[in-house]
């Protein structure tokens, strides 16, 4: 099936990009994939190699593998001063190190313009969740994770090779030199591998049009839900356990544990060592002596394989991601953000939350309720003009109506 899609939609292409005077690049990645280093290497090639003016910085949270990392590079061939200490918007090149990011952080492609080359690490178009309202002619896919694994190099080296294809301003020899300087501690053999992987990219790229991609449904953005008007005071979170919304599958590096049910004798050792609470048990409240391990929730598994190490009967084995069937992936408590809110159903047996009771229907305070409640906040909203600056036109209208009453 995938082969068929490939034949239909993957066409080897010749990329022809005209030189620009000013170039901005934004890399979107997951901590540990090397996007920060890739940005640094690219910027050093531009500034120290080509003597362009340039800048690089990254945006990251705490020092963890698996968090969202963004890396920004700007350079000016004309050596104009680059001063802005702000994220790259409307980039010339947008590099996505993991297709999953388009699902978990859909906002990363919201500023794609006609000029933007979108480069995505993905092996087939169906992996990609692309919103309907964004069109682009300049979309390139590369199975970079697989290439990096096979060629035994860092993912960022393959991704840099890809980036170079749409950056005629940067000569590949200069970028390779910058790359070698960064990995100066690597053995000569590794340097050869790096260079080969960097140059090989050309053979595997595929250009696709958005129509061929997976579709993204509208989703509730947890992160933009709360603002000054509705967030509980004190910065508290009154929604216990809502990390269940999160999808951490992108933390895996191509390998996942597979449960061989026929061998498993349900000893529970895996559940003792799993840092991510992925094991799904069937627990019969009437027969608590016999919990049965049903499967693994791949939404949360980060592929550390601690479970594989402790399993006394080898019922858990590490396999390439593709060998996990759809059937095996069904043990999901939160298929997407809607699955929870629409049906209010979650697996009773998930090790994280089993024994869950009936769904709590309590809702957060909407504006109308806020205005009905006699409080100083509602007074400010009703009396003061200043706060209009922070409200949407619809909200202002609601308040105006309220005032009339």
């Amino acid at each position, binding site marked *: 099936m995938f082969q068929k899609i490939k034949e239909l939609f993957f066409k080897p292409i010749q990329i022809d990009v005209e030189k620009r005077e000013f170039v901005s690049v934004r890399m979107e990645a997951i901590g540990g994939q090397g996007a920060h280093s890739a940005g640094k290497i690219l910027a050093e090639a531009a*500034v120290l190699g080509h003597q362009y003016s*340039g800048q*690089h*910085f*990254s945006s990251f*949270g705490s*020092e*963890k*593998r*698996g968090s969202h990392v963004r890396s920004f590079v700007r350079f000016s061939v004309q050596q104009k001063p680059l001063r802005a*200490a702000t994220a790259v918007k409307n980039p010339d090149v947008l590099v996505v190190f993991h297709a999953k990011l388009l699902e978990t952080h859909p906002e990363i492609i919201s500023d794609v313009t006609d000029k933007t080359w979108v480069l995505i690490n993905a092996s087939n178009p169906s992996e990609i969740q692309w919103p309907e309202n964004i069109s682009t002619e300049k979309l390139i896919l590369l199975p970079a994770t697989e290439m990096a694994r096979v060629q035994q190099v860092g993912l960022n080296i393959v991704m840099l090779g890809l980036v170079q294809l749409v950056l005629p301003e940067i000569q590949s020899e200069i970028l390779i030199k910058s790359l070698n300087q960064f990995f100066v501690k690597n053995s000569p053999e590794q340097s050869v591998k790096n260079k080969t992987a960097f140059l090989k990219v050309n053979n595997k790229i595929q250009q696709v049009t958005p129509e061929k991609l997976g579709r993204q449904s509208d989703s509730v953005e947890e*992160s*933009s*839900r*709360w*603002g000054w*008007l509705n967030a509980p005071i004190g910065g508290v979170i009154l929604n216990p*356990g*809502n*990390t269940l*919304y999160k999808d951490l599958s992108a933390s895996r590096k191509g390998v996942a544990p597979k449960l061989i049910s026929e061998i498993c004798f349900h*000893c*529970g*050792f895996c*559940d*003792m*060592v799993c*840092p*991510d*609470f*992925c*094991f799904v*048990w069937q627990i019969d409240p009437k027969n608590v002596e016999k*919990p049965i391990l049903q499967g693994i929730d791949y*939404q*949360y598994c*980060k*592929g*550390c*394989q601690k479970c594989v*190490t*402790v399993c006394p009967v080898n019922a858990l084995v590490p396999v390439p991601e593709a060998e996990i069937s759809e059937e095996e992936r069904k043990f999901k408590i939160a298929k997407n953000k809607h699955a*929870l*809110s629409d049906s209010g159903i979650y697996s009773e047996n*998930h*090790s994280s*939350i*089993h024994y*869950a*009771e*009936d*769904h709590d*229907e309590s*809702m957060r*305070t909407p504006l*109308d309720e806020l205005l009905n409640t006699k409080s100083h906040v509602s007074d400010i909203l009703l009396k003061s003009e*200043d706060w209009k600056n922070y*409200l*949407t036109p619809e*909200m202002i209208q609601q308040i105006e109506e309220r005032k009339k009453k």
Partner: protein
Amino acid sequence: MKDQIQKFLTGNELVAEAAKVIDFHFMGYYPITPSTEIAQRIEQMKAQGEIRTVLLPADGEHGAAGACFGASSGGARVLNATSANGLLYSLEQLPVQAGSRLPMVLNLVTRSVSGPLDIRCDHSDLSYALQTGWIVLLASTPQAVYDMNILAVKLGEHPDVRLPVMVVSDGFFTSHHRQSAEVFKNKEDVQNFIGKRLDPWTTLDPRHPMTLGPYMNDPDLINNKLQLHLAHEVALKVFQEISEEYFSLTGRKYPLVESYGCEAVESAVVILNSAAETMKDIIDERKSCQVGLIKPNILRPFPFEELKKISHPLKSIVVAERADMAGSQGGPLSHEIRSVLMADHHTEINAVSRVFGLGGKDFTHEDAEALVDLAVQSMDSKSQIPFFGFLGATTGKINQNIPDVLPALTKEKMTSNFVQVQKSTEGSKTLMKAEVGQPWQLVQRPKRIVAGHGACPGCGIFSALDQFFKGIEGDVVVLYHTGCAMVVTTEYPFSAHRITYLHNLFQNGAPTLSGLLETFLEKKRRGEISVSEDITFIMITGDGGMDIGMGPTIGTALRNHKMIILEYDNQGYMNTGGQLSYTTPYGKETSTSHVGRNSFGKSFHHKDTVQIMAQTGIPYLFTAIEGFGTDLVEKAAKAQWYAKNEGLVFGKILIACPLNWGSEERLGMQVVQKAADCCFFPIYEIEHGLTTINYNPESQNKKVLVNEWIQMIGKQKHLLKPENETALAEFQKEIDRRWNRLKAMAEHPLL
């Protein structure tokens, strides 16, 4: 002009470049994002033998500031770097330094002050710095960070100034921003510029004894403070002089206030540091709007006259700040600019203030445009623009109904039939004994932390915490210290905690939880909480929290509150990028104990926190490792019994940190097992002072040399190289000494 070379470095890296040519005697520091990199880079240079500076990794920022104060009193050139709560924790030391007129350089890499905890940039920390008596220089670019550090030394040590100097750069926006920068080619040129430090007195001259820091009440203190004021007055002039001299050496100019595009304009935006650089793009782009930019390069002493001159011809002024002083209608800069205008009798000017970019919120070109628009509107004196407000706050999606994810756990669900604790007598010893069932039974315990947290793959914290919780019955309230477990479970608006959780900064968790516990007990006594309610209070900390928080934890233990303190020991400050903690093993490579020509890694032995805590006389202590045995579950059950019936419990669990140890993710349990096998991390309990070794690798014929453990750890195996033979032997010797002592304690009830 002196020779310069081009570098492509970040703000933090350029502090280290400057430190290299300044040749500081001393640096006292404590890790805190985003300033930590400075100490890391300098420590790396030290390990390579490139610099001479003595580095002191303190037990907290308060200790670091104290160390710097001491060093400076002896005439050392001193460097420190901190951010946000680090600055606040050291705050009381800063006026001591200024009041004693002791020069030093502190890089404040700005970050939002907790709480809630935010690691990104704003100027809420800078606001506090303004009242310390220090000189405050502002570095808006990586280049300026380098230059200001050199200027700071000369300015602070000037005989008519004699003040400590802060160099303020924006966290991430400047500290992690890589740009082209020029640095001096020759160290001598910098040394000639800054000259030798000359002191009117020193604490290191026994032939000239002196008293530093007397007890000074009225009528004298006011005179000391007038001297301080005069030093600031002088500093303003001295800064201009040395800035001129620096310009002649480098061609790089730092006026007191930079006015950009202000010629013949009617309005201006006042904005600090990195945001001003972004602003310049828009000032250029919208020249026709007649709006300029005012960017002070110095905040203390405040360039009052300079600002008066620049603002005099304006019709309006917009002050945009990355800080608010809640309730005062403006951040500190707004108030100071208003006072400048008042002193100039410039009352017809329309002065508006906007708070922006808090907690690291990006200041975009669109935001800059909004400020220019505001400046244009405010030129019209009749315009009804609110004079104070927030730029970039969002309301939230308030018309959306969103249900909760999970219902609360009930007491019934959290009560099992597989965990039991009973008294048992073995010879003369009466100890508690726990039975907890098998792992397959334990899966029935609903998880108090749920899936979806953001820890690294293979992180040992969560398997260990879950094992511990498996042994705990009923309702639990947890308090987490700042650290990995806290950060990855509570990234707003998400929480992986299904039970009530609170955080406090990692100096202070133990007192916080003791306060909550005592409130619970008192409310029960008053009948305000049902008597049948019972909550177990558990504090969770990393080993780092047992450095900076050791004092308050000991205090809490001495008061013997009925609670549990649980330390997950990953042997370093892993949340901030793997710096050394006192618990880090001897010889381990961390980002503040590099291996190099002059260093084999951490130079002092690991802290024995359990033995320190044992001396407080609390009823129960234990150690454990993450693994698949039920040892930790049993200890949890016992811990709960002791916390309910007798008093405070302290437990320490060794867990693997694959990222910062350089060990394999899948082998976490094996690595910590080897730590127990080589007796680096013995598994034992202390009940009422009686030590019981739970796992004796000797008697089971499993004891190995430390070599076998450290060969599994990327950041320790360099000790196996021939050149580190002495260090390895020293490490083994200390492990053996502690193990033999522990065995003696297990044999003798009085030890």
